[in-house]
């Protein structure tokens, strides 16, 4: 089924101006989906199977061999946050980043903090066990505490409307509760993280965002399988 989809995609590629390479589940290409949809931009989607990468993907992203790749007029763009800035600079409607340089620097800082620190620390909670997991929980909640305080007095990180930092943290709105369910650990509760809990609700239910989530049951299956791999690695011999 994958190969016939690729053949069709190859035919489309010659015609279409904007193509997004993604997978059905990865949160990083979702950022690009959201950015393009928010700005009302038309594009074609090519779904990749990362266990069997298309020759086109490898041609466009030989260094990382990953999604997302956004191809605009035949030229590839890589790395989701870099792609977001490109989209914002190329299509000016519904701006994602603020205009003021200091606010832009602040937005870039939080997006980077999300990817460099928050996401890995939460992932660690998911894959580790016992004492390692306890330590991972402390780090993750410390990071989430910083994020919580960023929402003081705001509905979204961007203020009244969704922006760059909200899209960067978008994975949190859906994947966190999923991972909590699969590994049996609650990281965010309404008492300790009231603002983040509300943000999660507001973001997940927002138009465009709401329709974009991959099917929950499929995601649960995927992460359950992944957790089993990590658990079996750690199990005492």
């Amino acid at each position, binding site marked *: 089924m994958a190969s016939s989809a690729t053949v069709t995609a190859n035919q489309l590629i010659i015609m279409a101006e904007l193509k997004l390479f993604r997978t059905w589940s990865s949160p990083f290409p979702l950022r690009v989906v959201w950015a393009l949809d928010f700005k009302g931009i038309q594009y074609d989607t090519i779904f990749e199977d990362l266990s069997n990468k298309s020759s086109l993907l490898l041609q466009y992203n030989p260094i990382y061999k990953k999604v997302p790749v956004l191809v605009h007029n035949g030229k590839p763009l890589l790395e989701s946050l870099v792609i977001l800035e490109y989209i914002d600079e190329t299509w000016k409607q519904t701006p994602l980043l603020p205009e003021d340089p*200091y606010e*832009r*620097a602040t937005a870039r*800082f939080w997006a980077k*903090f999300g990817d460099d620190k928050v996401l890995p620390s939460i992932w660690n909670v998911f894959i580790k066990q016992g004492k390692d997991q306890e330590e991972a929980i402390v780090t993750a909640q410390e990071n989430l505490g*910083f994020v919580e305080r960023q929402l003081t007095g705001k509905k979204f990180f961007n203020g009244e409307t969704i922006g760059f930092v909200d899209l960067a943290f978008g994975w949190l709105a859906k994947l966190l509760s999923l991972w909590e369910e699969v590994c049996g650990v609650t990281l965010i509760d309404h008492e300790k993280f009231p603002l983040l809990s509300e943000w999660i609700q507001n973001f997940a239910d927002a138009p465009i965002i709401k329709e974009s989530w991959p099917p929950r049951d499929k995601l649960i299956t995927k992460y359950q399988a992944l957790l089993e791999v990590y658990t079996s690695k750690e199990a005492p011999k």
Partner: protein
Amino acid sequence: MAGELVLLDFWPSLFGMRVRIALAEKGVKYESKEEDLSNKSPLLLEMNPIIKQIPVLIHNGKPVCESLIIVQYIDEVWNDKSPLLPSDPYQRAQARFWADFVDKKVYVASRKVWRPKREEQEEGKKEFLETLKTMEAELGDKPYFGGETFGYVDLAFIPFYSWFPSYKVLDNINIEAECPKIFAWAKRCMQKEAVAKTFHDEKKVYEFVAKTRKKYVSA
């Protein structure tokens, strides 16, 4: 636009150097405060409570953190001369991608050169050289990563050149031999005053690198 500018820095920091070069390119005056990273100042902890690292640029009392974010901020505020990023959105995306590659791949690999065991060191060296060769392929025959003029990616990468002599003596990595185009590019960058004056005395850098390396390498 000017206002009060303070840079919290640490003299051998590759990341601090990026900010110094950017400020020099723009001809902007600032006060530099040297941090002792084993005893961080209350100012640093107040201005960067989350990451607690240098460099931090404090502009009219407001902190900007993370070297590449600071450089972009400098470029956007002092936008009347010496642009660091290209103006075309696609070229800007390319520049951001490669600067990110320097952080995610070149820097990370460079840390792997210093590991306790000999086999791990060899592995780290191999990986580090591969990242340098990738940079070399990207440079191609251009005088700078930015094309005809020194730009964002050049600025992000050139501080690493300050550690090349140390890598040669301590780790037997001869970057001049392995990546001659990178070496030539570095020498070209050093012709720029803004770059050259950021570099400290080679012996002082070597002593610092040797001391740091001892913490990680037992062999």
